[in-house]
């Protein structure tokens, strides 16, 4: 795919700069506070191996345009998957219709966009890699997983790759584009022993080339982890029920931050006053050991973007600094309405969705504690190292996330593996109970997908080993 989004849309669809300017720059811009046009062309491919063979392969092309007009708090949004000019003009007309009734408000002067990052230019994007190499890799994963343990009965390995070209045009004719590669490899294993079956799942990826999976045989690590989890769970005992000390391992358990504080710090909820964190900037919301950032600028990460989906360069935003709430994540609309600057967090699933304030890569900075010491400090508790999904009610602040690999801690030592259990806590309260922060910050392997208002976007999380003094574990062992 072309590296220049402007040229790509001009050559392929005849949508030159003068055409987009005409669509947005004329009648639309004068009557609204903000207007933009978002063009997207996406090609994706998925290969799935099961029962030892790649029997499913698919390729998808989607293209379309989203047009947005905003006046005050009103947003008109129209999208079409037909990029012919008359359709775009109709979309502009529909988006504008909603802004027509708006009162007087000044047009925000657009400053020149700072130079975007270059976080994931690849010599060969994963979509372009020969499909035979991908099929071979999936077969090797299958063989490795089956060889790892005789109890493995089923291996499902999938490899998805996509390339997305976007072009965003603002009302005064500025444009910015991005070409976004993304890939994800997932390994799921079913193990069986004496009639008991269990599942293990592991994977990773990012805005990176296919070679990522081959570095140090990373694919073998993914397969081994999936097998290890499934086999381990065959021997798991019932999880405890009740409130106890919990130690979270590094990496993917950072989903805690995503649910406990991340969503609650998104600008839309805070403008509307519907978040448990609304109006709490400057207040203590976590232990002084806790600093949480959202950083969209880390090279090749799944949650990273050169520019967000409103053309704002991404950046590193400090959300909580030494326990004090410092800022929210903003898109253009909510930033404008609350007198803040956009933070590069305006994201959308596709052209069919208006942007919302969303996270990128959200993680806690490392502390000083030795991870081993943190576990040894707990007499009785739970050590959770892997999780499935999580969810939050941003208004009450209550959040859950489900452990898929966890162990009891007894007398300072990690002992029996326990069955999966949901952990539940209260966002504004949970991080105040963080008493130890390890020196082992790790980002996740690159598998996260976040859902909000029916829109899914790729995200990352990260965490060092931490100790939380009191969180409710939803097991069955009373």
């Amino acid at each position, binding site marked *: 795919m072309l590296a220049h989004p402007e040229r790509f849309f001009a050559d392929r669809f005849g949508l030159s700069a003068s055409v987009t300017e005409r669509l947005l720059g004329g009648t639309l811009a004068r009557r609204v506070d903000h207007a933009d046009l978002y063009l997207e062309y996406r090609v994706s491919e998925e290969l799935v191996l099961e029962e030892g063979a790649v029997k499913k392969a698919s390729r998808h092309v989607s293209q379309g345009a989203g047009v947005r007009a905003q006046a005050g708090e009103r947003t008109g949004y129209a999208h079409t998957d037909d990029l012919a000019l008359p359709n775009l003009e109709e979309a502009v007309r529909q988006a504008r219709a909603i802004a027509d009734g708006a009162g007087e408000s000044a047009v925000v002067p657009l400053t020149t966009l700072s130079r975007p990052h270059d976080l994931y230019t690849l010599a060969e994007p994963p979509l372009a890699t020969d499909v035979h190499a991908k099929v071979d890799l999936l077969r090797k994963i299958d063989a490795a997983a089956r060889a790892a343990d005789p109890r493995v009965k089923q291996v499902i390995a999938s490899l998805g790759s996509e390339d997305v070209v976007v072009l965003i045009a603002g009302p005064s004719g500025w444009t910015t584009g991005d070409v976004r590669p993304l890939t994800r490899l997932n390994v799921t294993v079913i193990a069986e022993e004496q009639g008991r079956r269990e599942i293990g799942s592991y994977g990773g990826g990012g805005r990176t080339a296919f070679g990522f999976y081959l570095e140090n045989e990373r694919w073998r690590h993914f397969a081994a982890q999936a097998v290890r989890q499934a086999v381990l769970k065959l021997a798991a005992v019932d999880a405890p029920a009740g409130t106890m000390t919990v130690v979270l391992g590094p990496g993917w358990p950072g989903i805690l931050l995503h649910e406990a504080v991340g969503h609650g710090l998104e600008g839309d909820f805070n403008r*509307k006053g519907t978040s448990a964190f609304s109006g709490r900037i400057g207040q203590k919301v976590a232990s002084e050991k806790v600093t949480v950032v959202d950083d969209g600028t880390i090279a090749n990460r799944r949650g990273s973007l050169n520019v967000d989906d409103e053309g704002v360069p991404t950046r590193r935003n400090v959300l909580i600094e030494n326990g004090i709430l410092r800022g929210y994540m903003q898109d253009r609309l909510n930033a404008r309405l609350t007198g803040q600057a956009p933070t590069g967090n305006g994201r959308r699933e596709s052209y069919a969705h208006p942007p919302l304030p969303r996270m990128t890569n959200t993680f806690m900075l490392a502390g000083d504690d030795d991870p081993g010491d943190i576990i040894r400090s707990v007499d009785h508790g739970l050590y959770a190292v892997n999780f499935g999904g999580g969810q939050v009610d941003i208004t009450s602040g209550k959040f859950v996330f489900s452990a898929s690999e966890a162990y009891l801690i007894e007398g300072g030592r990690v002992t029996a593996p326990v069955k999966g*259990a949901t952990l*539940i806590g209260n966002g504004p309260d949970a991080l105040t109970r963080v008493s130890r922060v390890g020196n082992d910050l790790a980002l996740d392997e690159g598998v996260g997908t976040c859902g909000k208002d029916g829109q899914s976007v790729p995200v990352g999380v990260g965490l060092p080993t931490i100790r939380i003094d009191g969180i409710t574990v939803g097991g069955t062992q009373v």
Partner: protein
Amino acid sequence: MSALLDLLTDVLARARTKGATEADAFVVEDQSFSAQVRMGRVDTVKHARDQHLALRVFVGRSAAAASTSDLSRESLGRLVDEAVTLARITAPDPLSGLADQSELARSVPDLGLDDPRGHDLEPEAKIDLARRCEQAALGYDPRITNSEGGDFGDGHARYAYATSHGFRGEYRSSSFSLSTSPLATHNGEMQRDGWYHITRKRASLDAPEAIGRVAAQRALRRLGGRRVKTAEVPVIFDPQMAASLIRHIAGAASGPSLYRGASFLLNRLGETIAAPSITIVDDGTLPGALGSRPFDGEGLPTRRTVVVDRGVLASYLLDSYSARKLGLASTHHAARDGSGVSVSTTNLHLASGDASPESLIRSVKNGLYVTELIGFGVNGVTGDYSRGAVGMWIDNGELAYPVEEITVAGNLLDMFRAVEGVGNDLVFRDRTAAPTLLIGRMVVAGD
């Protein structure tokens, strides 16, 4: 024949020319509108027009799929080439292929899924429905102080499906939805809840005022939520939450989970898996219902399937491929997406029992009434279940006070075997529906 079916016929013919031995394809065209009003003012209005076409080809016994939103002749040519090329790299599977030709639907029944006139409403009138819905919530009680908005949405879709072995079918469907999510505030505490209605006919939508009122009541009853001590107690699931439980049963009964060995219902056909009061039915033929469709994703006529019959697992939910894998016949539950065929339910429901919900609550001395569940703590392989819950504590047969920040846990098989009461309050508000359900014992974790 319609333009959509002509397009599919053309694509299938091209696939044959390029080397496909069999193929099927669907095309969907959708127009939708949505309006959100927040605190009485228009927040977001969306217009959308979507289309895409998906093709699946077989070259011998090797399969591949491709889809595109660009229906130009040139693009569809590329689509065919890509699908056929991909099918040459996938491994042959002797059980792959289209549905059994003799089972294809012979006609496309009119299930009343379409309401073309329902969409003839000016945007302002649609916005007004959203406004009235939110206003009814905001005006219900002074403690309702804020809102996530009132939402109206409608969509009108055309779906056509054709196969290289002779099936051609097409239907239209409408949907209308109205919802609101108010916030209740008291002494610095904030709680949000909501209520909604989705229908195929606009005239069947609940009055906006009725939806707003219920939404307000639901938000208000959460105020003062507290935690409870960890205990093993009876748990009542309200109808919406009981519906979520039968969704997990359907997931475990679906063919792809079974042939992969990833289901707690594997090898249990004919076994008692639930209390005798439990009958779970999936019926794709209900006129005007949200989950109804005249034929499944492989062109087989939809039907009524009893999944659990008085506690006994009576049927799995299968498409052609998973049926062949299991040595059974398709139950006509194929669902299509751009990547191929999977399984989905239609109108899945738990049959009504004879107890009133009030009598179920009265029968519990000390227990939990669940009104919301959050999180993904359900293991489809083992049935292990652990989710965050919100609800009311039941004290001596009365809903005494709201509870939150607790979990409910058990194992789905144990839970369904421990059912002690099924309500008489089944109402279809969604594709999946259930009456109130009383489970004898589950672990509630809190303090």
